[in-house]
């Protein structure tokens, strides 16, 4: 069988049943019914959508109102006072901490003022910050980098101002001394500096220290 003959046979075979009638009348009715059902379903979907949207608005509004009422009813707790920071990076206030040196309990007090000035005092057993031998020195605290300050003995009479450097980390209302560097001849002894390293100073709003 040639290709032309096969194509002719194929076309005539496929068209053989064309004489059989197709019920267009019934099909038209079925189509009309399906379209109407589709329209009804569409309207139903639209109504459901609108109802869902309204419900969502109502629920959101009621939640918001409930939240507002709850907010009004809840007493406002005062937030803790914020700690001011001096230009050096240290918190303003009296920084107090304790340490141990040669088996003896010691204390360090560093007063930091907002203008960069301050007072430093430290000592071990029997030491009192406001006695003749344990008074606080006036110091100038300057920023020496991030988390680092230089503390100089603020006494113009002395030639050597004995600068102490201190690295620290501030957390909330405390300052941890990471390292202390000192020439070790007056303001702060080397042994004391080693003992004080690692001490945590707590920031308090104490009055000025008494000085010599």
């Amino acid at each position, binding site marked *: 069988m040639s290709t032309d003959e096969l*194509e002719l046979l194929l076309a005539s075979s*496929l068209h*053989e049943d064309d004489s059989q009638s197709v019920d267009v009348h019934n099909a038209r009715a079925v189509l009309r019914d399906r379209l109407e059902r589709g329209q009804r379903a569409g309207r139903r979907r639209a109504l459901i959508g609108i109802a869902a949207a309204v419900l969502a608005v109502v629920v959101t509004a009621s939640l918001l109102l409930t939240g507002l009422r709850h907010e009004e009813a809840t007493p406002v707790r005062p937030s803790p006072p914020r700690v001011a920071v001096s230009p050096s990076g240290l918190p303003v206030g009296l920084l107090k901490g304790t340490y141990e040196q040669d088996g003896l309990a010691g204390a360090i007090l560093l007063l930091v003022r907002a203008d960069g000035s301050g007072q430093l005092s430290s000592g071990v057993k029997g030491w009192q910050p406001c006695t003749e031998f344990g008074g606080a020195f006036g110091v100038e605290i300057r920023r020496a980098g991030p988390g680092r300050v230089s503390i100089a003995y603020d006494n113009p009479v002395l030639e050597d101002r004995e600068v102490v450097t201190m690295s620290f980390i501030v957390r909330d209302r405390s300052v941890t001394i990471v390292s202390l560097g000192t020439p070790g001849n007056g303001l702060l002894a080397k042994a004391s500096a080693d003992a004080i390293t690692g001490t945590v100073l707590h920031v308090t709003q104490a009055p000025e220290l008494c000085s010599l």
Partner: protein
Amino acid sequence: MVAVFEAHYTHLVRLARHLVDDQADAEDVVMDAFVGLSRRWQHVRRTEDVFFYLRTSVVNGSRSRLRRLKVARERRHTQLDRDAAPADQAAMAHLEHEAVVRALRVLPRRQREVLVLRYYDGASEAEIAEVLRISVGSVKTHASRGLHAVAELLEGST
């Protein structure tokens, strides 16, 4: 919409019947195509696009219907083959046509679609390519292979 239905429904049902083998399935597929068209009716800009849309819908709908009813269809084919087997029917004039239609049913889907669109619908290779979303070259390949397969099946059945 009514005019389009009157103009194309019968032809599309017959086209679908060659793709799904069953009259009821064919009518369902065509009905789905018209329902789909009614949803997009507002977007129809050119009347010549309507038939292309319907023909494509019918081919795609037939394909998915065949996929769904594959198992049932295979059982029915076996029954049809058995019914057509008696030797006394071989002499009947239309047996050859039935053999051709049966041969079409066992062809791979693409080959069957190309042959039905080409020899029943009278679609050009370009139109078939557009409906089936394949290249004209692929249409030619499927047509050639389909014809060859039908010829072999007819030879085998005689």
